[in-house]
């Protein structure tokens, strides 16, 4: 057992898989010699050498395309897209190539790769470097989409992603890189497609992802302490596959649903889950599900502005309290 940062968990997860499987290679912009702009891949170049850990040009299409070609022919590449906003410059691979090749070829081809990317706000980087874009990927059939909230989940889910035979988009939250957590020694392997009930509760279900998870947990503590409202907090972790069993199970117990989403509102994962829950568990619900999201605007740079738009612990507390009191 050791306490390590989310940032170091990334490097440890990659190292674990590279040590295990010589078919795993890793490349991206400034990831090798410099250890990545977020320092999340420090030491890998030294440990695994220039054949397996490579710096690329600023060519995101080439990075993802090359990952796909390598994956189709036997390797297990991990590719980094530095900021998730840049998925927009290589979206063809995400939307049209990775997820469709196996289906179109009636199962002839495979695409076992991982795209790691720094997602989310909190660094005052402004509208083009702060987005939460996991929904860009969730809406594409054929991908798997993961977003861990803690160091141990980073390692376990990254390992699961690398071993998964399908393309996995792995969203690391930039504002979690410095966060520490306990991590067991030895190999860690988790399971994709599993949500985690982080705090059991009976009055309401709060679903959260990535940076919103600690905020939801803090809100649940406050709601309990101040208002005696007992919330169940579920870390969704994996948007595809989606663990609807855990989600529906929780709502079946609490009869109330709140989602906490960092993404701008329209067509977010919360909308999808709400629509699943109302379609399948309408009569379980004691009240309308409520989505707590970033408003549907581009992200401002200034700290005072950025802090106002992301869902905060306070906003979660207020929203849940008002909804349950009404």
């Amino acid at each position: 057992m050791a306490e390590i940062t989310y940032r170091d968990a990334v490097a440890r997860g990659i190292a674990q898989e590279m040590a295990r499987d010589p078919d795993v290679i890793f490349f991206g912009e400034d990831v090798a010699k410099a250890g990545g702009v977020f320092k999340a891949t420090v030491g890998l170049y030294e440990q695994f050498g220039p054949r397996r850990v490579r710096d690329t040009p600023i060519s995101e299409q080439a990075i993802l395309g090359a990952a796909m070609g390598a994956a189709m022919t036997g390797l297990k590449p991990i590719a980094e897209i530095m900021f998730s906003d840049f998925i927009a410059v290589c979206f063809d691979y995400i939307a049209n190539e990775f997820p469709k090749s196996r289906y179109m070829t009636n199962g002839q081809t495979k695409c076992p790769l991982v795209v790691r990317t720094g997602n989310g706000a909190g660094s005052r980087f402004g509208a083009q470097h702060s987005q939460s874009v996991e929904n860009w990927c969730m809406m594409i059939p054929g991908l798997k989409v993961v977003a861990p909230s803690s160091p141990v989940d980073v390692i376990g889910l990254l390992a699961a992603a690398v071993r998964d035979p399908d393309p996995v988009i792995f969203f690391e939250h930039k504002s979690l890189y410095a966060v520490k957590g306990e991590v067991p020694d030895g190999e860690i392997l988790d399971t994709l497609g599993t949500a985690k009930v982080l705090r059991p509760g009976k009055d309401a279900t709060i679903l959260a992802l990535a940076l919103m998870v600690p905020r939801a947990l803090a809100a649940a503590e406050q709601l309990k302490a101040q208002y005696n409202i007992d919330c169940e907090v579920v870390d969704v972790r994996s948007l595809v596959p989606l663990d609807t069993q855990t989600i529906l199970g929780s709502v079946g117990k609490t009869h109330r649903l709140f989602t906490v989403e960092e993404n701008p509102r329209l067509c977010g994962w919360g909308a999808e889950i709400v629509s699943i829950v109302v379609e399948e568990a309408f009569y379980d619900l004691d009240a309308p599900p409520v989505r707590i999201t970033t408003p549907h605007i581009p992200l401002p740079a200034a700290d005072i502005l950025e802090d106002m738009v992301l869902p905060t612990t306070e906003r979660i507390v207020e929203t849940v309290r008002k909804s349950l009191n009404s």
Partner: protein
Amino acid sequence: MSNSPGLALAGQPGVNDDIGEETRLKLYHSQVVIREAEQRAFDLFLQNLVKGTSHLSLGQEAIAAGFGVAMQKGDLTFATYRGHAHTLARGVPVEKMLGELMQRDNGLMRGKGGSMHLASEEHGVMGSYAIIGAHLPIACGAALRAQYRGDKDVSVCFFGDGTTNIGAFHEALNFAAIWKLPVVFVCENNLYMEYTPISEVTAVEHPAADRASAYGLPRIVIDGNDADVVYREAQKAFAKARAGDGPSLIECMTYRHSGHSRADPAKYRPEGELERWKEKDPIKVYRARLKQFGISDEAVKKIDAEVRKMVDEATEACKAAPEPSTDILFTDVYADGGWAWRN
């Protein structure tokens, strides 16, 4: 133009004999297979038996054949929506190709992919890509795997002149060059993108070759209607790739005899252009070549007849084949064979 022996835009062959009879017959055979299968696809379309779109390589056969014959088992093909020729050139049965166009259960992908997405992994055909430029980086990745593992296969990536103006082209070429990847980029310059002449939208005369230097590569333009020329250039590029000396970019001049796709009557062509290029029809050029090298008319006719018979049989097999079972609708989205995005 490169100074390969045998270069002859007008169909006058060289005199050397490095290629040899066996290979020449293979080159001819491959071209005839493509010609007959493509012509058949066109006829079947007129009979309303080919659905969706289709993009034929009539007139461009020498390129697919020249590279196909030069490729070894294990070498990988990455093609476009205009990929029937490149698929057939790897030995994929005509029946499976036509079956896919006719959306039958015997098709290469049982109708799930369609004409634009032919793939046959067992023949090294790693897919046909219908988003312009997408497969150039993908071919780099396959080549990266070969380099990483010390495999000796080469990835061959076919695309058109119009494709040279999209961003992925640029990224892939630089990527392949800096890492010296064993990949060969083959630009089939047929003078048009869909309906627009490439010269109207490109800053240089030779859209691929005139940009090779931007990636530290030599400028190569060849007669794409002469299978010998193509074959020799392919061999050079493959040898270079296998020796670890990196990628090649080869611009093959050619012309498509039919429209861009089945929907296109190709009215935008200047008068006489098609006719001039038909004089350089690769099949015609190659029949003369065979004659020149003393291969008998009978041998040629035998190949023609055999191919025709094979294509006829393939056609009948496709006509008789059932439609795909709708069971396959939900298979193979994911590696577990299914499509479940939830539990």
